[in-house]
């Protein structure tokens, strides 16, 4: 689990989520346990934050049935 730095009591992190995307009503709540924008340093995870912002209305991509179920609606008919 630990790549660099120090860690004690690491069992408290075992099985925990770093980022959560929770559908809520017609929207989403995205929670980060990591810090995607920690000053200028965490450039490798900047995209996690930007992806979340840019795709704010498409966070269900790849999971259409989940969104339909969460919103209590039928899936949109295929227009093709």
């Amino acid at each position, binding site marked *: 689990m630990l*790549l*660099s*730095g*120090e860690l004690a009591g690491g069992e408290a992190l*075992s099985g925990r*989520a770093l980022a959560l*995307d929770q559908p809520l009503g017609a929207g989403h709540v995205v929670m980060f346990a990591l810090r995607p924008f920690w000053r200028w340093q965490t450039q490798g995870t900047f*995209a996690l934050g930007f*992806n979340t912002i840019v795709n704010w209305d*498409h966070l269900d991509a790849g999971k259409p049935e989940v969104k339909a179920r969460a919103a209590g609606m039928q899936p949109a008919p295929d227009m093709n």
Partner: protein
Amino acid sequence: MEHPTTLYAKGALMRGMIADKKSPIVYGYTGDQMPVYFSQDPVLRAAGGGGAGRGGFGGAARQVPGVGVDITRTRRRLRFLRMCFRMPTMLWLRRKGYPRRRRMQALHVRRFDAMVVVAREGLVERVPKKLRRGSCCSFRREQTRCCYPVNWLVAKL
């Protein structure tokens, strides 16, 4: 959301597992893992385990070698570091007239390859080079980890 009191992870790099590669949140990332910066809290517990989220330390316990291992060695190492940096630095600070509380805040910052101490609020002072050599963590330096970021030192004031 949890704030475990037994956890000590002040600005460490952790191995993150991407649980859902199709999520837009991880667009552009390839592979199953990614190193992430994590600092102490919050700790998110997803219903049904780590797999419920988009990624996590989670799932990791079963998939990544080394995850979920006994961390007793880490704790022992922490104690060792506290012990070995303390004496020469403490004596030097004492001679300079720093009060005991400030002396106890002296830490070794390997990241900048320099020993620094927090002298006053927000001020980081370098320990003389001659004091660094042959003392403190130069012993088994490569085998031990002592990466205290400066911002952590300041935050501890």
